[in-house]
Structures are given as structure tokens and as C-alpha cells.
């Protein structure tokens, strides 16, 4: 058995240790007790750990050894675009001129930051085919919410706020889509996909009406399929007085090939941590800028950046704006990385990104389709969905296949999503993986399919090589332990 590091910070703490040195100060102490009532002063100090600097480093190095990132190995998590996160962009985001500046310092002392944001906005206008961009939303879901609030403000401005209360969402959509609609105050109507895995024009026609505020769509959708009827879909929604929202989670498939603007979308978000290579950080920070067509500009979040000659300024005089969705100007540090990436790739490079991403997905799909059910027959875009139905009949579930992949040194694809495919495995290889890696991954999945027939216990018992075996998630939810419980004999 491999020996792995297995301590909590609190368990290695010892009174009197420290891993810091504060700046020197000769200033006399101000006793808060002399200026505040005693009940507002902390009675018991917070029980934070006490460690030396090496102990802290060894702790986190120990933890990092039990964590899998893109540089550890192939990370084919569908709809998450786990591409290489360029190291140079980390250096750049840490330049003092980007990392050590205050969001409220005088505008003229932050011209470089504002210029970068303005130029990033311009680049994203090009990529999306939209007329204005706001960098404020912190992630895709926040972009969705901001975009739907723009729908709301627009309909209200037209005197149709009370009437248009419904957002249409395909059943293949990301879970954030219906959830965002609800926090924007909307009711959700689910549109069933047709047998091709796409939005059915007839189902859509039946659903739209005078109560429609808009439709949210990912294109290509979560099955990795391009919505071939997009032009007609846009017409149907617009005809009914609704607006179209583009969930940009899958934009890695269409760079330089098409734009949401051309497809007829009114509001879009992009996930800069997906398409534009910024690190996912174990679940964030991301960045989810939104773009709108010209006639919606007045409703954009405030403040906005304007260029006045050579001077960049922030403006907040936008009476029709939905307001502020987040503090300051968004996740600036993430936006610096994304802008560096765009400048590294150029238009031609970004188009090559999409071509290779789509090629890789179709290649893996072709290699795997003899061994796994492929619910939809057409070529895919940057990702595709397999079904583990064939293996399920042998007693091997998709969850088992996912865990077994970990033993091969891969992360697992997204599983059990989209919901409309049984035992779904959603695979997105990205453009930054070499063919050798794709082949090794395909070989592993093929071997697992064979093991499911001949040696199913090997698969259902996986993982066999990780720091822990299969974890009990049911008990974790039934009897939640969500903070450190000091062992009684230690106290």
C-alpha cells in the first residue's frame, strides 16, 4: 500500500510555532478595549493552526500529491474545456502592475489596466459577433444571470415585463441555465430534445408565445451537436417577441467558424476559464463576460469602460442598466490571463484551436463507437457523449468506468450528464492533447469495456491506485461533517 500524507492542519499544529514575520513597527499599541465596549472584543482567539513555514509547505505539497490537474494527465471533462493553461500567463498576471493595484485608485493611475480590459472587450466582440461586452460577471452562471436580467430590463422597458415571465430551456442544457433563470425571477419551461439530440423546431413552436421572455441555448449543445436549425430557432423566438441567450460553455468548438452574433443570439456569455485557457483552480475563479447586441447596450451592467482619445475611463451614468452584478470590474486577474492567451493565438490560431478540438473529439468518438453506445449518429463538435448502457447490462455502471479510468492515470469524463442520455459519459479532449494521449485514452476505455465483460469486479472495485478507495458519499450527506471535529481525547 502506498503511504500518503494524511493529516489535517489542525492535527499538526503546536502552540508557539509560526510561519510569518510581520513588517516592523514602532507605533504604540491602541487598546481596542479603550475605544469599544468589551462585549465586542473577542473573548477566545480563533483556533487557527500554528505551524512553521516548512510544515505549511509540506502539508500542502502532501495534499497536492493527492490531487489531479491538467499537468498531471489527460482531463477529458466534458463541457469544461480542460485545455493547457499556459505558464507564461501566470507570470503575467503576477506582474506588480496587474496584481498589486487597487480597484478604487485614481483612474489615471490605472490606465494600463483599463486599456487591457478595453482591448479584451474588443477581442471578445470579434469572437462573439456582439456589439458590446461587460467583463463584470465572475463565471458562466453569473453571466447567465446577468444576461437574463438584461432580458428582464428590456421587456420591462417595452412594457412587457409582467407578461413575459417564461424562459425556455432545452432538456440537454447545463443545470445552471434553469437555476439562473429562477434567480432572475423567471419560470422555466423545459423543451424536449428531438431524436437527433437537438432542439425540435415543432416543440419550440408549441412552447413559444406572448409569455416567452427568451430561450437559453448552448451551441454546440451539451451532446456536442451543432443546432443545425439555429437560424429557424432564432426566427421562431424573435417572432414571438422573445430573446436568445447563448451559453458560451462550448464556444471552443466554433472559434473563427461562426459567431453567436451571426447565429442570431441577443446576449451571450463566454467562459474565459474554458475557451480562453485560464486555470480552473479546482473550481474557480473563472470569468464569464457577457456580450450584447447594440440595442441592449443600455441595459448592460455598470460601470462600463469608455475610450476617450487615448484615455480610458469608467462610466456609471447608465440609468437603464441592470446595475452591478459583482464588486469592481470582474475577475481582473483572470481577464489578464485570457487576454494574454488571445494575443498569443491570434485569429488564425484560435481557428486552429477549434479545428483541432473538433478533430480530436471526432477521432475519439470514431475509435470508441464500436465499444460503447453512441446515441447520436452525426459528427460531433468539440465533445461527444457515449452511453454506458451496454456495460450496465453486465453490471458495470458508468460511475465504475469513471473510477477505473483514474487507475489508468486519466481523470474521468463528465458522467451522468446530459440527463437525457442514460449512463452518459461526456468526453471533451480539447486541442492541446497529442494524438498519442488520445490513443492511450481510447485504449484504456476499450480495455475497460472488455474487462466489463470478462472481469467486471476489476471495474466495479475501482479505483485501486488512488490515495483513497471509493468514498461513501451517502453517509457524508446523511450525517454531514463539514468542519474539523477535534478528537475528544486531544482536547
Amino acid at each position, binding site marked *: 500500500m502506498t503511504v500518503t500524507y494524511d493529516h489535517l492542519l489542525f492535527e499538526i499544529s503546536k502552540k508557539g510555532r509560526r510561519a510569518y514575520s510581520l513588517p516592523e513597527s514602532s507605533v504604540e499599541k491602541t487598546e481596542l478595549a479603550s475605544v469599544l465596549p468589551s462585549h*465586542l472584543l473577542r473573548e477566545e482567539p480563533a483556533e*487557527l493552526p500554528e505551524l512553521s513555514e516548512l510544515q505549511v509547505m509540506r502539508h500542502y505539497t502532501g495534499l497536492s500529491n493527492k490531487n489531479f490537474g491538467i499537468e498531471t494527465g489527460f482531463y477529458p471533462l466534458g463541457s469544461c474545456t480542460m485545455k493547457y493553461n499556459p505558464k507564461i500567463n501566470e507570470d503575467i498576471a503576477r*506582474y506588480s*502592475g496587474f496584481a498589486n*493595484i487597487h480597484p478604487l485608485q485614481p483612474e489615471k493611475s490605472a490606465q494600463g489596466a483599463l486599456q487591457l480590459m478595453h482591448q479584451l472587450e474588443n477581442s471578445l466582440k470579434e469572437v462573439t459577433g456582439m456589439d458590446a461586452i461587460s467583463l463584470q460577471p465572475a463565471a458562466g452562471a453569473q453571466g447567465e444571470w446577468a444576461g437574463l436580467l438584461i432580458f*428582464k430590463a428590456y421587456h420591462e422597458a417595452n412594457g412587457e415585463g409582467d407578461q413575459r415571465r417564461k424562459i425556455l430551456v432545452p432538456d440537454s442544457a447545463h443545470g445552471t441555465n434553469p437555476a439562473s433563470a429562477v434567480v432572475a425571477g423567471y419560470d422555466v419551461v423545459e423543451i424536449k430534445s428531438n431524436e437527433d439530440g437537438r432542439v425540435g423546431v415543432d416543440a419550440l413552436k408549441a412552447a413559444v408565445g406572448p409569455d416567452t421572455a427568451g430561450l437559453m441555448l448552448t451551441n454546440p449543445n451539451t451532446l456536442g451537436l451543432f443546432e443545425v436549425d439555429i437560424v429557424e430557432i432564432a426566427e421562431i423566438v424573435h417572432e414571438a417577441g422573445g430573446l436568445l441567450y447563448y451559453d458560451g460553455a462550448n464556444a471552443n468548438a466554433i472559434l473563427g467558424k461562426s459567431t453567436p452574433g451571426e447565429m442570431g443570439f441577443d446576449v451571450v456569455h463566454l467562459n474565459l476559464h474554458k475557451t480562453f485557457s485560464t486555470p480552473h483552480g479546482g473550481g474557480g475563479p473563472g470569468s464569464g463576460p457577457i456580450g450584447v447586441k447594440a440595442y441592449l447596450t443600455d441595459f448592460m451592467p455598470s460601470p462600463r469602460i469608455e475610450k476617450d482619445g487615448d484615455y480610458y475611463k469608467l462610466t456609471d451614468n447608465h440609468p437603464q442598466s441592470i446595475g452591478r452584478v459583482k464588486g469592481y470590474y470582474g475577475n481582473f486577474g483572470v481577464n489578464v490571463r485570457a487576454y494574454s492567451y488571445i*494575443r498569443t493565438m491570434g485569429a488564425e490560431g484560435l481557428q486552429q484551436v477549434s479545428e483541432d478540438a473538433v478533430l480530436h473529439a471526432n477521432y475519439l468518438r470514431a475509435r470508441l463507437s464500436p465499444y460503447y453506445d453512441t446515441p447520436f449518429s452525426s459528427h460531433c463538435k468539440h465533445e461527444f457523449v457515449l452511453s454506458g448502457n451496454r456495460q450496465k447490462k453486465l453490471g458495470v455502471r458508468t460511475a465504475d468506468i469513471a473510477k477505473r479510468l483514474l487507475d489508468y492515470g486519466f481523470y474521468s469524463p463528465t458522467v451522468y450528464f446530459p440527463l437525457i442520455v442514460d449512463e452518459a459519459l461526456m468526453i471533451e479532449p480539447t486541442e492541446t492533447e497529442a494524438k498519442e494521449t488520445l490513443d492511450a485514452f481510447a485504449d484504456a476505455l476499450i480495455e475497460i469495456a472488455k474487462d466489463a465483460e470478462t472481469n467486471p469486479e476489476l471495474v466495479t472495485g475501482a479505483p485501486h491506485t488512488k490515495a483513497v*478507495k471509493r468514498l461513501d458519499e451517502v453517509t457524508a450527506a446523511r450525517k*454531514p461533517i463539514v468542519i*474539523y471535529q477535534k478528537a475528544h481525547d486531544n482536547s
Partner: protein
Amino acid sequence: MTEQHRYLPTTEQDRKEMLETIGVSSIKDLFSDIPESTRATKNKAIELEEALSEQALTTYMKQLAGKNTTTDTHAYFLGAGVYDHYVPSIVNHVLLRSEFMTAYTPYQPEASQGELQALFEFQSMMCELTGMDVANSSLYDGFTSLGEACNLATSVTKKQQVLYSKGMHPQAKEVLKTYAYGMEYQVSEAPLENQVTDLNWLKENINEETAAVIIQYPNFFGNVEDLRAVKDLLADSKALLIVMANPLALALLESPGKLGADIVVGDTQPIGLPMSYGGPHCGYFAVRKQYMRKVPSRIVGQTVDSDGKRGFVMTLQTREQHIRREKATSNMSSNQALTALGTSVFLAAVGKQGLQDMAQQSVNHAHYVKHKLAEKGVTVLSNDSVFHEFVVQLSKPVSEVNDRLLEKGFVGGYDVSKEWGADNATLICVTEKRTIEEMNSFVEALAEEENR
């Protein structure tokens, strides 16, 4: 492409082989499903600047970065929600470990134990600081955490009125109003009396429709609010007490939990994160146990594996959008896991004593500068019950003074004339980082401006 890009490993030979396996003759065939009318064709192809080499890129980005005033070039006396504090070097070193940085949401816990444990430790330390039972593993920032807290409060109380203090950060108010616009509840502002929230006004305005009362701790102007006195006003009410707290101040101030808070939110930027022009920072969100199943976003829980060994998983996921879709408690998906890790490493490094020392030194410095300014005849508006920020009234516009301070090597305070309701009012912050020389020369410079 003419030249192989360094991020793209696929060669012409690879492409040929892959197309063959797929059974199509060219890459174009894989894009033929995009309708002609929506294609980016020659006349509407995306236009971007030429791709840069690594060297050209860094030259250009250094040039942009060089246009900004930074903490390396100037001494900052600006806070107002974002603070220039000491961050031990090891924080950055841990964040650069790619196993953390390049992972995503730990959907496969067996391969993501490191991050899950680190977030479990984050939750534990945030509960220690806030005095609460349950914390999530982060939200976008302090202001969006506040918005989520109000959504929670209106949802559990089924009431539609939120009262917030005038002593809140102006941007917190703006974000709150956007959340309220979404979920369609009402917000009203409680005035200040003697630099803290007016308790008499609250008493008169808390009623059966009140879902929550929000207090910032210390408030936007630096004054420490009496949370217990506010909680006492809620004795006969179902309304929740939401506190937005600076986590550094909680090293010295009594925890909001002990003083009766139901939800505590805020931003961990002061504890371990660079200012980074306002983001990425890290929202925290902590509640009393009874609201655990209503908390937005990811929560990490402890469990065991099939051998009985301790391990960690994302838990209570039936709250979340990827399971519950339109019935979820929030739409949050990506959060701020990496910056939460940054705060954890920071707290591990400074520890129990260091956090108190840092907070105390900030208090000492702020009170020192405050007294020195008063001695020099500058009008100080704040009373003594402040933490590390206070308000000063200048005799000319704040922006004008700040421009001249900038020339002298200082970033001056934040113009709060509108928020405070007095001409030329500026909010000054002094942290532990300011040296005695910086403080003394800042006092001189400001006094000189006043006497010009």
C-alpha cells in the same frame, strides 16, 4: 496554419491519420453542419491582432502593467473594501502547484483529495473566525455572498423586506439591489446615528415583513457596529441577522456568531489575496446549522472510503444546480476554489497569533495616523470606535488632493462625500504594511495640502 503553434501538438500527419479513422476527407466536413448564413466567412471573419511570440507578449504586457501605479511604486492609504496587507511568499508558491491550479471542481473525489481536504480546512477556519457552524467552500466575492445571503433569508423566512445599513459598502448595496431585482424583494436603507446603524430607526422599521437586517462589521466607514444590540431588536422577529464582516477584523472583534448573527458573509481578500484590481477575490459564506441545507454552492464533507479510511467529498449536493436545476438554492457552479486555497495557506502561515498581530498592528497604525492628522489641524470626522479606517474632511475636492498625493508617492483615501453626506470627505485606511516613515510623510503631505 503555416507554423506549428507551441500549444497545439497535432501535426499534419496526425490530422491525416485522424481524418482517415473518422472517415471524412477534410476538416471542413466536420463543420459542414454549421449553416452557411452563420459562418464566419472572409468578409466577416474574426479580426484580431497578429499572434505574438512569448517574448513579444511579455514585452507588451510589461508595457501595459508599467502604466499602472502599484504598491511597489506608492504607499497606499486606500482601503474601502480592498486592502494592501502582507501576504507571505509561500501562499503564491502553493497556488502555483499545478495539481491545485489546473484541476476543476472535484467531481471524482478519489482523484481530488488534496483540494477537497484543503477546502474542508478552509470551511473549518472560516467557522472558527465567524463563530458559525457551517461554511461553504467559497463564492465569487463578498458582495455576491451578501446577495446570496439575502436570497437565502427571503427564501427561508418567506418574507420580502430586507433592511440594510447605510454603513454598508456602496458596491455591496448596488449588488444587493441587483439580486433583489432578480428575486423581486424590497430593500430599504437604515440610516446611521453617531456613525453606526441607527437602532431606533431599526426598531421602528423591523416588522412582520422583514426577512433580514444587514450590518457591515466594521462598517464601511471603519466604525465597529454593536451586533448584539441589533440582534436584541430581532428578538420577536423571524428576520435573520446577516453580517458582512472583514475576516481580518475578526481576529480581534467578537465573532458575529457569538453576538447572534444567523449568516456571516464577506470577502477573504484581506487575508491572503492580492488586490488584483478588484478580483479574483473570494467570498465566504457561513451560517448557523439550521440553514445548512439552504447554503449556496459547494460544501465539502468528511467521510470514509470502503476501507474505512478518512476522506473528503462534495456533499449535500442536492442543493445544487447540477442536480436540482430550477429547484436549486442558487445558480452557482464555478466558485473561487483557488483563492479560497490562498486564504487557507495564508491562515496556516500566520496562524492563531499572527492574525491577531496583523490586525492589531493595522489598528495601531490607523489610530496613530488619525491622531497625527488631528494634531496637524486636519478635520477628522470619525470618532474613536474605528478599526483601521476613518473619515477625514478636506477643504478641497478629494480627487484634487489625491492627484497631488499621487505625485508625492501616495495613493490617498476614497472619496466618501456622497456616502458620508459631507463635502470633501475621504476614507483613509492604514494597514500593518505602512512604515513609520510612510505614515509620517503621508500626514505631512496631507497637512501641507490642507494648508496650501
